[in-house]
């Protein structure tokens, strides 16, 4: 990625916390689920950024916060030069025309009582009625557009009066893709678009997404938990863990030289469909489960499960360290200063000092 290019989407320190309330009349807030806890990244025009991580790490929430389906707790989302978080509703809606979503479950994301035609036309109808389109569309134009889209995504346009239940999973996902394309978006946020599909259908959809990207110059933010899928489709990959991005890298580099202990474990745990490779591989088996994201952390988010943890990590949140121009990792192992020798006591003393400095600094 050239540095001269302007990013299409800039996400800075995005946080999305969901309150936990007592549930009685007073409904006091007693805590928060830190679904997304301070992530920053840029997406440049024409590229595909893949976000990979386990369930509950905040991948889907990221997409929803970016598209303003949830109002972010803090941080900024700048899309195409417009600050989506603070813009007024109409500006935000106008900007969001260029940002469309594809959802995971092709069974739940289509209204069973709408025909395929009305599903695909719905974004156009809504934007047209609110007079947000640059030029108003007539219903005939919409009809033509629906037929074009259906053909483009590989659906027979004769099926436009059918209902979603008459289609298979792969075909439904194609309907979802056609709907996302209806407003000629610049970026498509795809939230696990192939996870619910069979292997042979998955390949069809991945190829279709690749073709559409070339044809319309689309930018993708692609979410998946399958590392092989992410690696296939992405130009860059961000690995998330517990609401934080732990590593960002070019997709080819990530497999060859993963840096963060979590990425290393994740890559080694993902099965490869080749018995010869599979039998010789050494697995790093992580112990335990992903902890609950309901408390504020003082140290590295991966500390509890990390095979390479150091005393320093327990009380210092790692910033992103640059390895190369396109590879950043949030792990103290790659800090320019060596922190491995510092004992637990010294680390805690240092953390306490920094904390007081930060609070006095604020005052």
């Amino acid at each position: 990625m050239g540095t001269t290019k302007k990013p299409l989407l800039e996400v800075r320190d995005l946080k999305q916390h969901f309150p936990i309330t007592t549930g009685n009349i007073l409904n006091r807030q007693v805590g928060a689920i830190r679904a997304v806890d301070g992530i920053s990244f840029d997406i440049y025009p024409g590229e595909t950024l893949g976000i990979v991580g386990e369930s509950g790490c905040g991948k889907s929430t990221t997409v929803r916060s970016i598209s303003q389906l949830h109002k972010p707790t803090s941080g900024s989302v700048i899309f195409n030069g417009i600050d989506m978080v603070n813009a007024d509703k109409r500006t935000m809606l106008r900007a969001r025309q260029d940002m469309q979503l594809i959802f995971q479950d092709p069974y739940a994301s289509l209204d069973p009582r709408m025909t395929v035609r009305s599903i695909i036309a719905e974004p156009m109808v809504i934007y047209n009625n609110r007079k947000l389109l640059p030029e108003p569309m007539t219903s005939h134009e919409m009809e033509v557009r629906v037929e074009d889209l259906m053909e483009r995504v590989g659906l027979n346009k004769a099926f436009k009066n059918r209902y979603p239940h008459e289609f298979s999973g792969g075909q439904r996902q194609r309907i979802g893709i056609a709907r996302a394309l209806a407003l000629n978006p610049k970026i498509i946020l795809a939230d696990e678009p192939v996870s619910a599909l069979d292997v042979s259908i998955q390949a069809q959809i991945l190829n279709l997404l690749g073709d559409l990207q070339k044809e319309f110059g689309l930018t993708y933010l692609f979410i998946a938990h399958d590392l092989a899928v992410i690696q296939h489709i992405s130009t860059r990959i961000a690995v998330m863990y517990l609401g934080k991005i732990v590593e960002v890298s070019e997709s080819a580099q990530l497999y060859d030289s993963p840096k963060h202990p979590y990425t290393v474990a994740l890559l080694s745990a993902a099965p490869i469909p080749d018995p010869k490779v599979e039998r010789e591989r050494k697995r790093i088996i992580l112990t335990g489960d992903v902890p609950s994201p309901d408390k504020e952390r003082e140290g590295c988010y991966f500390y509890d499960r990390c095979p390479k943890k150091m005393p320093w990590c327990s009380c210092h949140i790692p910033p992103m360290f640059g390895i190369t121009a396109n590879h950043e990792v949030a792990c103290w192992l790659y800090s320019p200063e060596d922190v491995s020798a510092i004992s637990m006591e010294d680390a805690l003393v240092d953390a306490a000092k920094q904390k007081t400095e930060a609070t006095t600094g604020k005052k």
Partner: protein
Amino acid sequence: MSSKPNAKAVLEVKDLQTYFKTDAGIVKAVDGVSFTVHEGETLGIVGESGSGKSVTNLSIMRLIPSPPGRIVGGEILFEGIDILKLSESEMRDIRGDKISMIFQDPMTSLNPFLKISTQMIETIRLHNSDMDRKEALERSIEMLKLVGIPSPEKRIYSYPHQFSGGMRQRVMIAQALSCNAQVLLADEPTTALDVTIQAQILELIKKINSKMGTAVILVTHDLGVVAGMCDKVCVMYAGRIVETALTEELYTNPAHPYTEGLIRSVPRMDTKNKDRRLFSIEGQPPNVIDLPPCCPFHPRCHKAMEVCRHAYPPKKDLGNHHEVACWLYLDEETKTKALQDAIREEKA
């Protein structure tokens, strides 16, 4: 089995047919499936959704809901006895005791109202009526320890919702193994789990398989999981096994066009030369209601011939335990004969 030549066969499935009667017609969910599992062996069953993998497993456990389902033909020999002929009470002694099953969804297969201890003790005492509650509890704790639940003496008194998905799947495995089952049917045991947890669970199944000599039938759609776990693989398509081979043989020399397509359509992260397009099998899996007597894969096959449209291919042994059901591997004479027979029958 080449790796375990002297192992005896524990489970033989011969020409199993399980049909479901629906308003739209008869669904031949499993139509003539045969395979053998030996002691200490891991057999993989791969296929897409609707190919009949799970129904095969449920048929072995005799858990097919009837009606609408019914096992209409075939034999399932467990240690030489046809379990399809057993009475329900005799079947209960085998089910859970000799043949055990782990289900796909660990969230719904444990009873949310009962403590883990209650559920585990129930299973053990059902099959060992002479064991008292205390012994059964001890055995349960031992099993939980084996599957790697930390501090099992305390955690056994928890309810399922207090466990995470991976831990619930461990409890399921512990429960399934608490009676020293000889055959373990694992129906997509890791599909609902994350990769790092999946690796833990697969490692556990592998350990049990080698330590206790349990035969495992692993049903999955993930070709990566099969590659790492199984000795032998059956590929299913539309209710039939289209190819059986040793794992390495299957991945290096897939014979059936479907297997080949399946292997080539999975993106791999260890390859360098990434042409950006994946190989894809066009079209959709067939509707198995009232399937005509042809090769069910022919509309999607890139090597389809005239005969494929008219007759189902017989099984052909390619040597080294490699069997395939595809007309490509049969000689011209058989093909023409089959084609003529089929056409004559269609006319009649």
